[in-house]
């Protein structure tokens, strides 16, 4: 049978056919058809996505896919964003770069998320890959502008340099000057995370001016408002622009210059930045507002009336990120003006204040759910919620795929009935059949997990905090959510039973994070011993877990499946459980 296939479809033809197949899932399916397809496919796979850098080793990837041009790696668990993962936990990219330097000389793209990147890694990238084009460092850390200078200097065909939300040791703005005068290939440059006050502005201007294909440019706070016009005039082809500071004393000539510069950008569809906004300068944007599809005002401390005015000029808006200064009134306006809205994120302006500082409640979200038929993705911080509101939202918007609600005070009940919010979230999972991501908050019992286990069949990622009564809650999720890939839990009374009873489920998921729960050290050890394909990591910064009785709960637990076995780059406060490994430390 295989022979027949080989005669009727020479490898080159198959390879050609496979080149049209881009999605990882499809490629994986192709490789399962038969050995020869697996062989052909692996030689022509150009893109690899590794959701957990410790799930597999660089050598294994290289062995299987020898001709990769593009790699995407993720390191730390999501809760690292909120300081729950101690510094030094891991996620180092250097071993990957070192291996790929030898094996993939034609590597073009590296995309990293939540990884520790050092200047050494960046220098190695600059040296090793002659055709390097794309570097995206999303929420990374550990490097400085010296490393960036190396990239700028050496990568002759660099197209994308995107440092979004990374922590960079900003030693000096002069790294930009390392882009040679011959570099004209930039398509995307995002330096919004750089915090220093100095940026070599003239170098930036010249760079922007000589890159005719520049489509996306996100500046940092060092770039003042008066300089924006200069930049925009050199890059009227921009599609995505992130301003720096958007504040200055109102001066008519500066204003008109700015307005003119914006209006010359006929392709501009997406705006962000806006640190320190002076509302009087917002009308400078009006000429482009009708074309805007994405607006990130989540750093803009402007009040609802100004937000409403701006948003009402943007009928094509699909994506809005905003602070809760928008208030319910602003969201009602949004609901009536922006019928194309697909994604809404409302962030708290005063997350640690005890009292509400703005009039933003569940009403705003209900209004948007009623008024925006295409709404799919929600991230919403507020201080009160009701089951009734959640049920309404669920019934209005069954097309939701991402729903993340954060009621700021933990364990807040339905403010009308004082009951838990089980029923409300239950309605969300029941009605929104394509829900892939859910974050819970408020007062919740085990019942909400029953609903989630029953209805959340497409749920891939679940975030839980201060919820549930017993192991039953966790059991419902692990046993019911068939598509679950990532589960992260903090401060819930979930212990050993549900975890051990569903141990095999963990092998079908990318990872499980549990912190400040009730999982005992003994259970962790057992899990580590019995499940060789899982890495069970116990994290404790105060003292080693074996200095206490086995029944004591561990502080933090991170379990992930891996074919690479336990890792060896752990800091002193992380222990891997396992039989072969003893307690690896």
């Amino acid at each position: 049978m295989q022979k027949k296939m080989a005669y009727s479809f020479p490898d080159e033809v198959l390879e050609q056919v496979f080149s049209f197949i881009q999605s990882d899932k499809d490629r994986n399916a192709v490789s399962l058809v038969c050995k020869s397809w697996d062989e052909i496919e692996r030689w022509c796979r150009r893109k690899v996505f590794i959701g957990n850098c410790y799930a597999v080793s660089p050598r294994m990837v290289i062995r299987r896919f020898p001709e990769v041009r593009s790699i995407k790696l993720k390191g730390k668990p999501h809760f690292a964003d909120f300081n729950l993962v101690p510094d030094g936990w891991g996620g180092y990219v250097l071993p990957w770069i070192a291996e790929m330097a030898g094996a993939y000389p034609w590597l073009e793209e590296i995309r990293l998320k939540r990884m520790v990147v050092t200047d050494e890694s960046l220098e190695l990238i600059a040296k090793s890959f002659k055709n390097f084009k794309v570097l995206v460092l999303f929420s990374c850390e550990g490097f400085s502008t010296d490393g960036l200078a190396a990239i700028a200097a050496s990568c002759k065909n660099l197209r994308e340099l995107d440092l979004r939300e990374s922590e960079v040791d900003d030693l000096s703005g002069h790294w930009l000057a390392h882009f040679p005068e011959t570099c004209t290939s930039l398509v995307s440059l995002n330096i919004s995370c750089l915090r220093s006050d100095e940026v070599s502005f003239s170098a930036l201007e010249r760079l922007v001016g000589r890159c005719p294909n520049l489509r996306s440019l996100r500046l940092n706070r060092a770039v003042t408002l008066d300089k924006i016009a200069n930049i925009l005039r050199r890059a009227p082809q921009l599609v995505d622009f992130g301003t720096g500071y958007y504040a200055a004393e109102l001066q008519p000539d500066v204003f008109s210059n700015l307005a003119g510069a914006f209006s010359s950008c006929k392709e501009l569809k997406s705006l962000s930045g806006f640190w320190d906004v002076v509302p009087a300068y917002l009308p400078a944007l009006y000429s482009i507002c009708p074309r805007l599809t994405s607006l990130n005002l989540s750093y803009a401390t402007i009040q609802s009336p100004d937000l409403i005015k701006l948003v009402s000029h943007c009928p094509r808006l699909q994506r809005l990120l905003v602070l809760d200064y928008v208030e319910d009134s602003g969201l009602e306006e949004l609901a009536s003006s922006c019928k194309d809205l697909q994604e809404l994120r409302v962030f708290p302006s005063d997350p640690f204040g005890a009292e509400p500082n703005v009039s933003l409640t569940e009403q705003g979200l209900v209004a948007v759910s009623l008024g925006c038929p295409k709404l799919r993705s929600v991230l919403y911080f507020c201080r009160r919620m009701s089951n009734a509101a959640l049920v309404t939202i669920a019934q209005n918007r069954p097309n939701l795929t991402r729903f993340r609600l954060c009621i700021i005070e933990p364990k807040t009940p339905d403010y009308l009935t004082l009951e838990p919010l089980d029923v409300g979230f239950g309605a969300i999972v029941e009605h929104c059949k394509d829900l892939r991501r859910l974050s819970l908050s408020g007062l919740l019992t085990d019942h909400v997990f029953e609903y989630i286990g029953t209805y959340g069949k497409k749920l891939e990622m679940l975030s839980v905090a201060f919820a549930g009564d017993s192991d039953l809650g966790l059991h419902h999720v692990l046993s019911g959510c068939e598509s679950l890939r990532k589960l992260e839990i903090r401060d819930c009374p979930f212990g050993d039973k549900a975890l051990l009873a569903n141990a095999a489920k963990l092998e079908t998921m990318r990872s499980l994070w549990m912190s400040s729960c009730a999982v005992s050290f003994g259970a962790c050890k057992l899990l580590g011993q019995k499940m060789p394909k899982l890495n069970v990591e116990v994290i404790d910064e105060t003292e080693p877990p074996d200095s206490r009785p086995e029944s004591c709960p561990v502080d933090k637990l991170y379990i992930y499946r891996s074919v690479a076995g336990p890792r060896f780059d752990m800091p002193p406060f992380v222990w891997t459980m396992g039989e072969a490994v003893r307690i690896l430390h």
Partner: protein
Amino acid sequence: MELQLGLALPPPPLIPIETFDLNSYGNYETREALGTNALSWPLLKLGPADNDINNIHHHNSSSSSSSSGGGAGCKKRSFDEAPFFDEKRNVPKTLHLLLWTNQPNDEDDDPSNVLHENSSSAIFKNDGEGLVGWPPVKTWRKKVHHQIPNGGAENNRLPAVENGIGGRASKSTYVKVKMEGVPIARKIDLSVHHSFEGLTNTLMRMFGISDGNRKSFKLTYQDREGDRLLAEDVPWRTFIRSLKCLKLIRSRG
């Protein structure tokens, strides 16, 4: 039932708990069969006690893993004896869950619960002020909200690293701490410390320095201008305002 905003009455629960039937879902079959030894893993009851859903296995309190008494011993028995990784048997459609002894007292006697109480106080690290990582706002965003919300840019300067003024873990700031000889830097939340004493205590714990060895370390810091200074030479407020990062060095002599 048409639901309108503002009505106090919530709709009835989606799944009436009393008639909750385990058999109707939970088809997920674990590849490695879980031990279904009835003695070790009797049944979970949902709702009123007389709705014993799985009649096959019965409540057997003597093998409860959460019986009272010494912690370590009890736990060991239930974990080591339960053959929950029994590869030969398949998991039947009805899920065999774990025993819940209905008496809440048992839960209280459960040593792991007692410890959970202690550990939940551990949630409130930072001297009882505020929760770590809650609300789940990225560090990025925390730093932005130092500004005064009155619609204008009152100050164009970058948000300064300042000690918290009231509120729960408000304006919490993390600074890097390095210890001489240790390659990995750590981070410490300054806003929850109010004195050199408290700060030093935390640092000693963080780096595992015993009380005896404490004297051999000195706390230094680097200020905004890049100068290296001894922490204790300046008043606390000055220290907090001007420091960029900390370093523990071994004192000589």
